[in-house]
């Protein structure tokens, strides 16, 4: 899954710590999200989108490899 969390964070001038605090997760989680090491739960993704005031699909996009469940 692709995401533009880092870009949106820069637009809104939020640090990883500040964004983490707003959505009630650790800074490690935001970092793992931004580096593609972790796919958030639906609830967390919706919270992040709500913080940035954008629809979910504007922040998180499926990639072709996400459809391959045999990986």
């Amino acid at each position, binding site marked *: 899954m692709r995401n533009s969390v880092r870009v949106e964070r820069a637009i809104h001038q939020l640090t990883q710590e500040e964004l983490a605090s707003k959505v009630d997760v650790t800074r490690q989680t935001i*970092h793992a999200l931004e580096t593609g090491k972790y796919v958030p739960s639906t609830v967390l993704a919706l919270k992040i989108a709500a913080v940035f005031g954008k629809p979910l699909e504007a922040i998180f996009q499926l990639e072709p490899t996400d459809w391959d469940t045999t990986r």
Partner: protein
Amino acid sequence: MKTTPLFPYSFRRPGWVLVTLGMLTAILPILFPTLGDLFDARIPALVAEGFMDDRRDWLVIIENNLQDESIAFLVILGGLLVCFSREKQEDEFIARLRLDALLWATYINYGLLLVALFTVYELSFFYIMVANLFTLLFMFYIRFRYLLMITRKQIDHA
């Protein structure tokens, strides 16, 4: 939302106290042999069978030295509290790391046990089984702490 059944963060320190007490229970009687006699007791047993006996007794009172049992109880209970207490900041990513560490520890622990089944025999295998009481918790703790450490390092270098 379902919450993970973990102990509160505050249970971690008592967990370490129990593990330490377990270690002391193992070490001190070696240095002071008479301390071992403190663990002699008459206790009810659901089932008891000697190593050299053919007889197996059910629901009996037996005389036993409970030092080994005390060590195992303290270390296992303490280990459970240490390993499965919440982090100070707990979230879904930490939960994911915890699950990954538990899976890794289970694979390694039972993988080594499978190798031991056909390479270690007789009394030595008994010692392997005794160690196996603790190795899953130990491996999980090491792996989980390692995963937390490298994620924190990645942030520091970001």
